[in-house]
């Protein structure tokens, strides 16, 4: 059995582990367009993408970047092809064609190519000092650029998660940052106004300027180096560094012009298989079931990518496992304020009930969204302890009618849940020694 | 009393010889045999039981009496006369023996219960009537002791080494089909004539080597059935137990053995269902008759001689046969002394009785 995996991040690595759980013999080949990194002479052959902002902000050193250790591929007997892009699929021959025309035949193929940054229509994007921020190389390039150009001011285009993490990192490097956000607030995709306001205030306290309801239309530069941006309303902001972080989209380049069906991402069934037999997709590049919205859509979050990679891996290796679906969630600490958002955090439409407590002074905010007495979303700012219990309630679609009034209480815990559900939880998942 | 406690070895010698055909033989062999086990005695008691010695009086109850004084004899005779017709009475003949230092007055009576007394006690058997007499004399009349009270049998015992006692009683002049003999090494009761073995009641005689740890409860159990233990001896208790189980409760010697030396519960669990049911019932009903502690015992009555060991065989017991003769003894040497080439010699297992029966009779 020949397994070929495209992508060496969350989805790909999870798939390797799953395949090896079921199939100790098959050949596994992983293709990644990422280069090998050397840290003090030691090769690091994967890294955790979400850590790039920490690397940039110097909270993490390069040697802490790897997600799995160097022995991982050896132990799992994986052939790793780095720094090489898969360019074409030959479905009839069941081959992946690599840049340089090497052809890799496969019995089972996983596409876990991840996402690509969305590049908006902005003039002067090709100026020096303009970066996207999704890969390790981006972080290293930005760092070098800052060092060589003694950057003091930066503009971050986009007040989403990547933008804010980039902002935070830049602020750590004593760079004044202006965030330009098209929406009316930061983190508009996952946060409501109250939650956003807490983060906005914190950013403000740290000296970060936020411009909302606006966008960058042009990057001005001299000698091919950015010097400032011009906003939609004509306002000019001087900056020698521009980070474009308006979002990511599924990377579906490889399957374009193939019979593999796509929407925004590659469409997969409950077993993460595409419409073509033996070809699977996982992670940010695919569209799988959203458990809450009960529809297929890309959910570009780490836990979903790992779960999908794992399930895809199992199915590729012959152990039939169904993907239960996932939903949006994220945990991020911004300006020292931990935040968690899960599910439908900013509901629109009827039938929702919102419970919340908001303590602006202490930057504490908790919000629970219920629909038909089931928890469907939650936001926690500052006080995130035991947030996972709510995530669990959302995932298990537990009827919360009997304990609704306890949801926001200080001492809310498993004990507040119906005894039977609690027993199921504790008995179903038990500790191993 | 201190004399007993100075010694630190213990053990009695016992031997029984039975001619199962009923043919009688003289007491010479039994004396020779018990003499070989002199080491097992300490001169504080010896005795013999003999069955078949009074064929001319075989229908009469024969009381072998020991009187410590004349008044005891007078009182006893008065009591006997009230209840019995004295067929014959005489002194028990003895021969002078230097080693026999002190002796009570030894007398024997051949008796028939008076008809009117039997009528008066219509609710008990003649045996019970006689047993009652024996217990009355033993407990009520100071200085009087009934050494044996069966028919056509007698117990000859006293303080001294058994072979000396045997010669003193001139036992070589008697003929019996069962002879048992005992050399005593008393530790528990002071060596007195009545306390020597065998113990006799009706036609039972018991000789015993050992110490019964269950004595206290066996005695109280017997009390429940009207037996009053008067002598603090293990033989008395064993005699009464056999009397109760075999004579009164009409159980076989095998069953009696299963009561006195009951099999362990673990062994009972392994028995067949029918057997187990019986064994359980026996232990439940007769638990207080279980005889605990180390012992080997030879019990005889008119038709039977039984040798029995304790539950875990803490005391020696050997058996042998030669033709119709059954030998049971503490030591094999005591058997070979009078029967150099027996047909078979074996060591009975713990709690497994060796039973000799008169041919053609039921035990």
């Amino acid at each position: 059995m020949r397994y070929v995996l495209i992508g060496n991040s969350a989805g790909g690595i999870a798939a390797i582990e799953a395949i090896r759980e079921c199939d100790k013999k098959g050949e596994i080949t992983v293709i990644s367009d990422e280069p090998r990194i050397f840290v003090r002479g030691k090769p690091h052959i994967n890294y955790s993408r979400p850590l790039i902002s920490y690397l940039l902000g110097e909270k993490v050193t390069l040697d802490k970047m790897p997600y799995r250790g160097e022995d991982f591929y050896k132990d799992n007997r994986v052939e790793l092809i780095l720094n090489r892009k898969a360019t074409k699929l030959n479905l009839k021959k069941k081959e992946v064609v690599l840049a340089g025309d090497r052809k890799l035949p496969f019995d089972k193929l996983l596409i876990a190519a991840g996402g690509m940054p969305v590049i908006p229509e902005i003039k002067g994007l090709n100026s020096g000092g303009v970066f996207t921020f999704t890969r390790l190389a981006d972080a290293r390039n930005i760092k070098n650029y800052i060092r060589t150009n003694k950057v003091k001011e930066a503009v971050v285009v986009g007040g989403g998660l990547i933008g804010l993490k980039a902002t935070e990192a830049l602020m750590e490097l004593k760079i004044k940052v202006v965030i330009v956000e098209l929406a009316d607030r930061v983190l508009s995709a996952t946060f409501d106004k109250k939650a956003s306001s807490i983060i906005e205030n914190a950013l403000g306290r740290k000296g970060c300027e936020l411009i909302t309801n606006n966008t960058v239309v042009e990057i001005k530069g001299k000698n091919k180096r950015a010097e400032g941006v011009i906003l939609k309303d004509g306002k000019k902001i001087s900056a020698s560094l521009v980070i474009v972080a308006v979002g990511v989209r599924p990377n579906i380049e490889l399957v374009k012009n193939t019979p593999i069906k796509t929407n925004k991402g590659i469409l997969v069934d409950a077993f993460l298989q595409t419409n073509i037999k033996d070809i699977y997709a996982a992670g940010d590049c695919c569209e799988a079931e959203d458990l809450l919205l009960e529809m297929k859509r890309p959910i570009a979050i780490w836990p979903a990518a790992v779960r999908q990679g794992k399930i895809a891996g199992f199915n590729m290796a012959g152990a039939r496992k169904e993907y239960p679906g996932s939903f949006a969630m994220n945990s991020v600490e911004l300006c020292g304020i931990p935040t968690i958002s899960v599910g439908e955090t900013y509901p629109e439409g009827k039938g929702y009930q919102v419970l919340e407590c908001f303590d602006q002074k202490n930057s504490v905010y908790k919000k629970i969204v219920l629909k038909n007495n089931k928890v469907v979303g939650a936001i926690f700012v500052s006080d995130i302890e035991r947030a996972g219990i709510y995530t669990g309630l959302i995932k298990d679609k537990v009827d919360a009618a009997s304990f609704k009034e306890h949801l926001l209480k200080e001492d809310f815990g498993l004990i507040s849940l119906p005894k039977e559900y609690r027993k199921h939880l504790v008995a179903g998942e038990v500790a191993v020694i | 009393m201190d004399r007993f406690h100075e010694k630190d070895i213990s053990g009695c010698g016992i031997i029984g010889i039975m001619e199962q055909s009923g043919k009688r033989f003289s007491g010479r062999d039994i004396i020779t045999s018990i003499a070989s086990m002199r080491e097992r005695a300490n001169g504080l008691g010896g005795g013999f039981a003999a069955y078949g010695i009074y064929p001319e009086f075989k229908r009469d109850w024969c009381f072998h009496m020991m009187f410590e004084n004349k008044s005891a004899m007078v009182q006893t005779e008065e009591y006997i006369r009230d209840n019995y017709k004295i067929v014959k009475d005489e002194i028990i003949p003895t021969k002078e023996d230097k080693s026999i230092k002190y002796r009570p007055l030894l007398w024997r009576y051949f008796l028939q219960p008076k008809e009117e007394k039997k009528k008066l006690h219509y609710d008990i058997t003649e045996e019970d009537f006689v047993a009652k007499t024996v217990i009355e004399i033993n407990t009520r009349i100071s200085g009087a002791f009934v050494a044996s009270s069966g028919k056509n049998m007698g117990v000859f015992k006293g303080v001294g080494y058994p072979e000396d006692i045997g010669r003193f009683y001139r036992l070589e002049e008697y003929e019996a089909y069962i002879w048992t003999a005992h050399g005593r090494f008393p530790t528990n009761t002071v060596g007195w004539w009545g306390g020597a073995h065998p113990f006799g009641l009706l036609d039972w005689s018991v000789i015993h080597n050992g110490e019964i740890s269950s004595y206290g409860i066996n005695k109280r159990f017997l009390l429940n059935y009207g037996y009053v233990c008067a002598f603090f001896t293990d033989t008395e208790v064993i005699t009464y137990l056999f009397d109760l189980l075999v004579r009164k409760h009409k159980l076989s010697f095998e069953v009696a053995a299963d009561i006195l030396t009951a099999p362990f519960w673990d062994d009972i669990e392994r028995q067949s269902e029918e057997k187990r049911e019986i064994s359980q019932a026996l232990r439940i009903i007769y638990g207080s008759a279980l005889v605990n502690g180390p012992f080997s015992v030879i019990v005889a009555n008119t038709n039977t001689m039984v040798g029995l060991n304790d539950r875990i065989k803490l005391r020696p017991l050997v058996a042998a046969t030669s033709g119709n003769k059954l030998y049971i003894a503490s030591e094999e040497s005591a058997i070979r002394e009078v029967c150099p080439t027996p047909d078979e010699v074996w060591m009975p297992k713990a709690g497994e009785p060796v039973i000799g029966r008169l041919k053609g009779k039921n035990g």
Partner: protein
Amino acid sequence: MVKRIYIREEYCMGCRLCEVHCLVQHSKTKNIIKAYKGEYPKPIPRIIVEEKGYVSFALQCRHCEDAPCLEACITGAMYRDKKTGAVLCDEDKCIGCWMCIMVCPFGVISRNIEGKKIASKCDLCVGEEVPVCVKNCPNEAIVCEEEK
């Protein structure tokens, strides 16, 4: 033989000795009096006791077979010990993103922000024959048994 920690809430008396001993076990000195009176920052227990009315129970990481925290961890700090099957957090790798807190349905991972921010969770008392909460529970409301 795989052993598991079972929680028996019907016998939890709510004394919180498990917390006390957990705290001591994860202190620097491992001496109960020093841990409470002499260590700064004060060590924190990795077991949670929930209480409501007369019902109470202690809860620590279940070391789930299908552990969501393992999937959610972006750094690879959260790992399963191959030998024991325990889910452990490599505190050196952990950067305190709290993804694990977000997904743990038992709510048994907490933030330790006394020094470097790290996720704090039950480590089954690495090196001890039996976790101290199990060993010291006076009523065996936390037990370590072979898998049922």
